[in-house]
């Protein structure tokens, strides 16, 4: 199995008072042909990491190998072989879509036609529009097309769907899936757990500049011990000591308090729910809310950090 990206002990400290340790010893292996996700809350160090891997900034310490090459010695070759979208790039407002793509295409020695990249992201109809007149989703797809004109083996996408409406997000997901299907290696960052689950073969969960868990979304969720989450709330909130009692109910792998109630990670909801109802009956507690859902990467993150991705 060959690796597209390998990095060991990556550290990046931004000078200042006090210095910011954005990345603190990060290890990563991205396999050729997979879609790999860096999932983590805002400020986790995802952009810092991906820009080091893209050769746009130098690490404070650590070893980086991209496509078997090092940035110091093989920059020209690497630039031809990778494609990049940055977090929040504004392309020139008053160039048309096609002009923008032709410009980017001209930088690559090999590569492909601007038109075919345009079709790949589904922007063919907008070829003559000025960039300033595109919607957020269309701009993001244009940014991806700009990353594709060099026909890259390895594609970096930093927060590709942040700030997009749900429909634009789904369109972009389709684009990424198609790219993945065409055999390109993709490294993307996101703070949306559903995006990581739906798009990525493997995910590294990043928090405070470190990888705190790594694996396929299914593996990571399985590590919780149960595939389901039962969420509930009692009318007058959770009392002291109750959480431990609930954790002892049959089928419960883990229990945690939420804002107004609790969440139980369970293997078999049909075993746990009757036991939870019996507990409420016995303790004379009225249930305000009860629901079950599939466990997600969000639950993995909460279990590992005690915080939610969205408000971490």
């Amino acid at each position, binding site marked *: 199995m060959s690796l597209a990206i390998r990095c060991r002990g990556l550290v990046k400290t931004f000078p200042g008072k006090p210095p910011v340790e954005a990345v603190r010893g990060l290890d990563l292996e991205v396999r050729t042909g997979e879609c790999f996700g860096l999932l983590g809350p805002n400020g986790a160090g995802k952009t810092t990491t991906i820009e080091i891997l893209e050769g746009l900034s130098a690490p404070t310490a650590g070893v980086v190998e991209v496509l078997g090459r090092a940035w110091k010695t093989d920059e020209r070759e690497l*630039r*031809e072989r990778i494609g*990049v979208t940055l977090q*929040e*790039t*504004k392309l020139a407002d*008053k*160039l048309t879509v096609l002009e923008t793509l032709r410009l980017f295409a*001209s930088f*690559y020695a090999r590569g492909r036609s601007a038109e075919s990249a345009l079709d790949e992201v589904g922007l063919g109809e907008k070829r003559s529009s000025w960039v300033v007149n595109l919607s957020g989703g269309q701009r993001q797809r244009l940014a991806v097309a700009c990353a594709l004109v060099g026909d890259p083996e390895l594609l970096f996408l930093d927060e590709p769907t942040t700030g997009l409406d749900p429909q634009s997000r789904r369109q972009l997901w389709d684009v990424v899936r198609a790219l993945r299907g065409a055999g390109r290696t993709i490294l993307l960052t996101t703070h949306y757990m559903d995006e990581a689950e739906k798009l990525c073969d493997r995910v590294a969960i990043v928090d405070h500049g470190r990888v705190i868990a790594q694996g396929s979304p299914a593996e990571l969720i399985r590590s919780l011990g149960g595939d389901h989450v039962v969420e509930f709330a009692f009318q007058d909130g959770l009392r002291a000591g109750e959480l431990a009692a609930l954790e002892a109910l049959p089928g419960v792998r883990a229990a945690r308090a939420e804002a107004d109630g609790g969440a139980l990670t369970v293997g078999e909801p049909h075993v746990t729910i009757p036991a939870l109802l019996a507990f409420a009956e016995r303790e004379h507690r009225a249930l305000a809310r009860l629901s079950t859902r599939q466990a997600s990467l969000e639950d993995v993150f909460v279990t590992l950090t005690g915080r939610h991705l969205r408000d971490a």
Partner: protein
Amino acid sequence: MRDRHPFLQLFAARLRELKREPGVLFWIFGFPLLLAIGLGIAFRNEPRTEVAVGVLRSAGAEAVAAALPAERGFRASVLTDAEAAHALRLGKVALVVVPAAESGGAPEFRFDPTRPESELARVRVHDALERAAGRVDRIEPREAPVTEPGSRYIDFLIPGLLGMNIMSGGMWGIGYAIVDMRSKRLLKRLAATPMKRTHFLGAFLAARLVLVLAEMVLLLAFGWLAFDLVPQGSLVDVVALCVLGACAFAGLGLLVATRTAKVEIVGGLINLVMLPMFVVSGVFFSSERFPDVLQPFVRALPLTALNDGLRAAILEGAPLSEQLPRVLVLLVWGAISFVLALRLFRWS
């Protein structure tokens, strides 16, 4: 797939962006023309400056006013004491004549000797009164008025406006544009491609040169059509000076843009660099007006070299070989700023 060379793509993209930005086009082409028209009208050369004189209402007033006829360039009005003081204060008259109390006596001139037009009025009114009193002139010079192109204010102005435009075009067109791209992270995005840095900067410079030549043609054509100003020197020399100036200011523009992250900050820096040159480098009035001790500094400024060079070439037909110090000043500014800028330049 490479449709066209990356340099040509970058160059075309830059020109398209400029062409599609109406504000930019106004500043580059409309603004200097409006300035030239406005200042050309305000400072048009009148056939002969009219001398406005007040004559104090008294017994001899009519005789004095009759000695100052309109066809000799006077505009005499008879005024009361209060009116005369008021008119003098406002500059409506340059001088007030108090006619002599008895015939044969001397009149009194009231004027401010520090005002050039009052001084002029004193001399001319005195002269006219002497003639009216019977003086016989022994010398009657023939007058041959010179209003030929080359010595009017508009002739002075047009090369200055061209120089000023080359300066502000270079500073804004390169400095501001690059910082704008940096603040949008477009520079970083370009740095993530195999694009050659020299192509990028070269395309910016080339687009700038195209605009400078267009500005030059426009201003010179305007001067020729509207004011009969025909460049005396070789057009090749004028073009060469414009190109040198464009390179010097492109270098300075690049220098202020090397690390600046915000467009507001680069705007301030650009004004800081340009403002002193607007004042001292002879755009609207001659830089010779500054004291001698300052002259070496004034002449070492790139805009002074450019303006003086353009004036010498356009108005006097001086060949470039007679302007080597100015050429050198522009070359040195361009070279130093480019070298420094390329050393310090940041893509992100």
